[in-house]
């Protein structure tokens, strides 16, 4: 189960030769994805989609597929990483794209089913196939590569009207590799009508992960009136390269609350697609990025209002320190029939040094007239008046600036409902501030 890919000569590649143990029921979608992968232009800064990403590492390089780590390594790394402490979470461990937890051994909870891709029933396979949106990824050859060569993945289902109290906690870990390697992986979440679920995805990597390229996709379907809370924390090491997508489709009256946090790394790109496909759906998307040193972070978000009467509220804030760079591209797309849409997007950035860099692009694409849409973006330094006010109360300038910087993102952290996640992130933020202040 491994392949070798040379991006520059990919038009000569053959899919069956790449995937030795394919999932036969996924074959047709994978073939389509592979065609897209082969025909897509190689990412460079001249291509709008990759304008702010450094993709030069793809040039002249061959990649193999990441291998499954052996048991002794797994036991070792399980303790190595700093995980969130939950009282009651269902924990799943994924290493280099391979699911290493014994899914069948997870304690059973009424209304919740978690299935490995290779153990799915035909009905479940249909669900997974319906999540393979080849068109959506047309611009993203790495997303297509992930889809085309998938052999491991998870399907998470919640039955109608079941409210799952325990969060699912997925730890995605990337380990070191001697040769350039690609890991690939997909999570499919399917909520039935009126179901509720919380998913926490936590990404980490070892310090010497520089040869790895981690590809991942999480695809979510929210049926009528369901509610889904999603935390996605990209806390990889500075050397990491990850390119991932999160796609959520909302049916009528469904609600999505999601929270993203990214520290950045060598390449850290997440594309967030949110699609309102049923009336009165609502999404609240919040994000914080805190790149420092020479890290880069990139969030591309796209909210599509395909039907009338849906609401979207998106807020992203970032602090960019040292020589780091951040890219935020937030798009709101209102389709012609999506009257009475309400979509608001706000992005604020704080640059801490004159070697830090931010590129932000809040976009509106609107084809309906009776809508309320607005976006705002700012790049600024801390408000001098606030710094002065704190100083007149005896707080020195540096401390004042630190307090105000924390406050800038704390406002968003305060909105996190899940206490374990909030505490973990508050602590993380404190550590970050100590690091940045020095």
């Amino acid at each position, binding site marked *: 189960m491994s392949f070798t890919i040379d991006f520059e000569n990919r038009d000569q590649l053959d899919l069956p030769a790449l995937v030795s143990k394919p999932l036969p029921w996924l074959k047709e979608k994978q073939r389509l994805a592979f065609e897209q992968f082969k025909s897509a232009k190689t990412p460079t800064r001249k291509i709008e989609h990759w304008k702010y990403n450094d993709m030069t590492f793809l040039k002249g390089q061959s990649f193999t597929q990441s291998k499954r780590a052996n048991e002794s390594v797994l036991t070792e790394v399980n303790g190595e990483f700093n995980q969130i402490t939950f009282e009651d979470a269902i924990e799943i461990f994924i290493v280099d794209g391979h699911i290493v937890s014994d899914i069948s051994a997870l304690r059973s909870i009424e209304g919740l089913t978690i299935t490995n891709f290779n153990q799915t029933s035909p009905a479940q396979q249909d669900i997974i196939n319906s999540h393979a949106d080849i068109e959506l990824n047309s611009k993203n050859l790495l997303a297509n590569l992930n889809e085309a060569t998938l052999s491991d993945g998870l399907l998470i289902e919640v039955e109608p009207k079941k409210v799952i109290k325990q969060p699912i906690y997925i730890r995605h870990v990337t380990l070191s590799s001697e040769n350039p390697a690609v890991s690939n992986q997909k999570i499919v979440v399917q909520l039935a009508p009126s179901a509720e679920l919380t998913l926490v995805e936590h990404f980490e990597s070892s310090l010497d992960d520089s040869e790895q390229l981690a590809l991942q996709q999480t695809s979510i379907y929210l049926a009528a009136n369901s509610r889904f809370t999603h935390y996605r924390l990209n806390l990889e090491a500075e050397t990491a390269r990850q390119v991932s997508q999160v796609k959520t489709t909302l049916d009528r009256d469904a609600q999505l609350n999601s929270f993203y946090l990214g520290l950045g790394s060598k390449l850290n790109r997440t594309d967030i697609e949110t699609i309102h496909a049923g009336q009165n759906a609502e999404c609240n998307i919040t994000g914080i990025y805190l790149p420092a040193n020479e890290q880069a972070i990139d969030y591309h978000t796209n909210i599509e209002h395909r039907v009338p009467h849906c609401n979207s509220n998106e807020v992203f804030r970032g602090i960019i320190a040292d020589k780091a760079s951040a890219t935020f591209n937030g798009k709101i797309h209102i389709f012609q029939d999506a009257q009475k849409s309400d979509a608001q997007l706000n992005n604020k950035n704080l640059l801490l040094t004159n070697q830090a860099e931010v590129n932000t692009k809040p976009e509106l694409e*609107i*084809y309906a007239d009776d809508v309320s*849409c607005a976006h705002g973006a700012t790049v600024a330094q801390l408000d001098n008046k606030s710094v002065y006010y704190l100083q007149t109360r005896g707080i020195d300038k540096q401390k004042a600036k630190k307090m105000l910087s924390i406050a800038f993102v704390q406002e968003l952290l305060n909105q996190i409902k899940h206490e374990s996640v909030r505490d973990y992130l508050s602590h993380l933020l404190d550590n970050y501030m100590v690091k940045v202040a020095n």
Partner: protein
Amino acid sequence: MSDVIDEYVKTEYAAGFVTDIESETLAPGLNEDAIRFISAKKNEPEWLLEWRLQAYKKFLEMDEPEWAHLKYPKINLDEVSFYSAPKSIDDAPKSLDEVDPELIETYNKLGIPLHEQEILAGVAVDVVFDSVSVATTFKEKLAEAGVIFCPISEAVHSHPEIIQKYLGSVVPQQDNYFAALNSAVFSDGSFVYIPKGVRCPMELSTYFRINEAKTGQFERTLIIADEGSHVSYLEGCTAPMRDENQLHAAVVELVALGDAEIKYSTVQNWYPGDEDGNGGIYNFVTKRGVCHTNAKISWTQVETGSAITWKYPSVVLRGDNSVGEFYSVALTRNYQQADTGTKMIHLGKNTKSTIISKGISAGKSQNAYRGLVRMSPRADGARNYTQCDSLLIGDRCGAHTFPYIESKHPSAIVEHEATTSKVSDDQLFLCLQRGIDVEKAVSMIVNGFCKEVFKELPMEFAVEAGKLLEVSLEGSVG
């Protein structure tokens, strides 16, 4: 209520007549010979021909850009004629009396009187008909102040040192596909030089008109405001109604030296095509200015015409404390498409820029704002404020905003806001209930929406712009 508004947006294009003049037109197609022909026609010095050929070489290596939010068939340059001039003025008119009376009649029809005695007090006009500048008024009066205002083809001979120094200095030949094309084949355009410390005594103005069928217009404008000088310049554009699309690829370069100020206003009313989207001008224009220390460049544009508008008047804020402004109203209706905006490149310290963009979409049109604000690592204390508002009239049109913000300086402040609204039934009902008819109500609401931009236009033209908008909107209210 929608039906009433629909009716309202369908108005005839008032400037759509064809002038029957004998013209000399170059056979269609682009090649070195065509470029040599143009250069020879203008009796150009060798260096300029070389410059054109160099641009052509670069052009051949470039691809037509595809990133804009525009849909149109690829332009076939083999079908475009790159030079057309009214034959009777081949020997260049020495004064207005020598200009073909039919031409003068054309401009009278357009409401641009050329006879000096009839001219709007205090406005000097240069007229470019197809590819050639046909008349410049008030030359002597301007000369008294030391101001040079003449066709660029003439300036090549009379002031070669200035042209050689500045041509292509703001928009390099290879800047983009259309700028490279223009550099190779540009025909004529206006040249302005304001000497040190001079405040130009009157508004300068150029009217552009495409008349001949199957021709492209490739004018090039160059304005130099020397230290401490001040100039206000206005251009207007019209074209006849024709079924096929005509290409217009202009380049405008502005240089504001230390403490100088240039105010550049455009009222663009090229033929937009008919109700079903046939015909109309493809308007691909590169406009850019450079501001030196303490200088200021202000772009104001009212865009109502063209089937396709691709245009981003920009300012490079090179000197410390320099100021860039962009005020824009873009109205699209029927099948018009506009992708327009600006670039503000902050290089110097304490540079400031303001962007106010108002997009109005009606009918089945698509209207996009595309802008770039870039703060360089040297731009201490730089500031930008951007406001983009879209107004939708009817539910078959689109309004889009693509702002790029790139900052590399912690003390630079960038603020961007965008909103979308519509002319609501409630607003219309209130007006009607108070006795105001639909047309008046819509034009009131739209004018209110554009107020911040109109107030930036020179007085006479603000009125003209308001009227133009009103006429363009007639019948488009849906």
